[in-house]
């Protein structure tokens, strides 16, 4: 829900309360914009209430600088099923907290390769651009270094958000054909499903067969070096609990989602 609040400010000890009010309102995640107005009230604030408008109004009413608050108008939020879907996944809910400062984009080592920067990706999710986001390569070049996550001033879990987007792209079969990362990740998962552990040699061979067998030639020197140093076992290691893993995956599929 979107709402407009008219707010009257009162003087607090040692100041007029106005600067403090502006600063604190701007810092609230629910407040989208604050503007000064003339007349009976001092400020108008546009808020996006995640649950109920009254909860946000009460939160503001509790501030020491509030003289009075009038709810001018409540607009129903435009339905955004894509935003709802992202928010339903663990970590995804944090997109609502973003203030679009761009710290994430400035921290990202792989931004040059991304169709849309992390900041822009969040803006697009909130604008409901499902197809553009899920077919982009942005999340598939995220290396999970978590620099954005620890630097975000709003606590947005950007790396986990990228994982959510990857899972959604897979679920809706929208993975971008230009990025081989999805193929590699799928091959990786297959290896766990059959053995319970990763079998590097098999993983590499399957990956290159599925993408570009010629690229394997380029990788041959690295593979041979690892082999000759005993770092690339020829045989897969299988755990005893593969039956347990199968049961886990079967039930997970039946329950669906996350």
């Amino acid at each position, binding site marked *: 829900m979107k709402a407009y609040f008219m707010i009257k400010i009162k003087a607090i000890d040692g100041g007029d309360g106005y600067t403090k009010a502006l600063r604190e309102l701007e810092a609230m995640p629910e407040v989208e914009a604050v503007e000064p107005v003339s007349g009976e009230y001092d400020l108008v604030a546009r808020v996006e209430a995640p649950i109920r408008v009254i909860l946000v109004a009460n939160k503001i009413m509790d501030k020491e600088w509030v003289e009075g608050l009038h709810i001018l108008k409540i607009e129903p939020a435009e339905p955004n099923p894509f935003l709802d879907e992202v928010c339903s996944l*663990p970590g995804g809910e944090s997109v609502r907290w973003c203030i679009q400062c761009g710290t994430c984009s400035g921290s990202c*080592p*792989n931004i040059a*390769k991304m169709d849309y920067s992390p900041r822009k990706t969040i803006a697009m999710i909130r604008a409901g651009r499902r197809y553009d986001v899920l077919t982009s390569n942005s999340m*598939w*070049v995220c*290396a*999970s*270094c*978590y*620099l954005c*996550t*620890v630097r975000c001033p709003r606590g947005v*879990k950007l790396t986990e958000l*990228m*994982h*959510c987007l*990857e*899972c959604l792209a*897979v679920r809706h079969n929208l993975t971008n054909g230009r*990025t*081989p*990362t999805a193929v*590699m*990740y799928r091959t*990786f*998962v297959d290896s*766990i499903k059959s053995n*319970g*552990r*990763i079998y*590097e040699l098999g993983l*590499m061979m399957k*990956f290159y067969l599925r993408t570009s067998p010629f*690229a394997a030639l*380029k990788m041959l*020197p*690295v593979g041979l*070096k*690892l082999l000759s*140093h*005993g*770092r*690339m*076992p020829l045989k897969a290691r299988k*755990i*005893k609990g593969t039956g*347990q*893993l199968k*049961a*886990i*995956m*079967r*039930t*997970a*599929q039946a*329950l*669906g*989602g*996350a």
Partner: protein
Amino acid sequence: MRYYSYFPGCSLEATALAYGLSTRAITSALDMELIELDDWNCCGSTPYGSINELESVSIATRNLALAEKTGLDLVTPCSSCYTTLNRANSYLRQYPELKGKVDEILASAGLDYRGGVKVRHLFEVIYNDIGLKTIESKVVNQLGGLKVAAYYGCQLVRPEPGFDNPNNPQSLDRFIASLGAEPVPFPLKDHCCGGSLVIPELDLALGLIHQLLESAASNGAQCILTVCPLCQTNLDAYQDMVNSRFRTRYNLPVLFFTQLLGLALGVESKALALDKSIISAERILAPFTMVAEPATETSRRV
């Protein structure tokens, strides 16, 4: 003697074989015992969490359920396993709906997990539980003069805060100093090596690896010290490829912290699997491996 449940992770049986062997070689000298978790499975790492969230948390939790029975902290030398298992733990705490599903999934496999396992990184255990003072007192082979770049990588200090500063970590530098070696300034010490993207996005990863090698080499490092199997493989096995791509001549050995620690503790170099490195460390470690003689007592115990 301190006891821990041990989760080596898939890489330590393959590309990072030396990490596993050198870990085994140092524990008795540090009065600690690592008891390998019986029948552990792959943690799922980043790839599984990017394909199917619910399944990935569930298979990671299978390990936690197995570990809970031991009543010990679960220790892993792999930064990716560390982050993935910790992530499962914190997701189960944070998202009750997810926890309900995971409980049901585990029950279908005859398992249950109450959330009582503490997941720890081997480096953090050695740094905090054993402590640098104890390590200093056990060093028989001072690594004086060896210039080392402390490479933390990403997932040792991120995303969970607490153990070290996530933007400017210091612990590994202090650890290097405690062995008598010299930690050099390394501005990119917590930057990314590309991780598993080196397979699908080779050019991207080579660029990152190149930057890291440049940062370490230009600061006079003789070798790079790492706490992560993926970092070691990327910087070691792909170094020649970086050299031909960027016309550089890096020749920087990339060692696991356990290998350098073992050397300082006087463990014989063979047990530390130094020969598994593709960029040989023999040249820079020769002065230290030769004086390993008084340490035979330690190595016999291994």
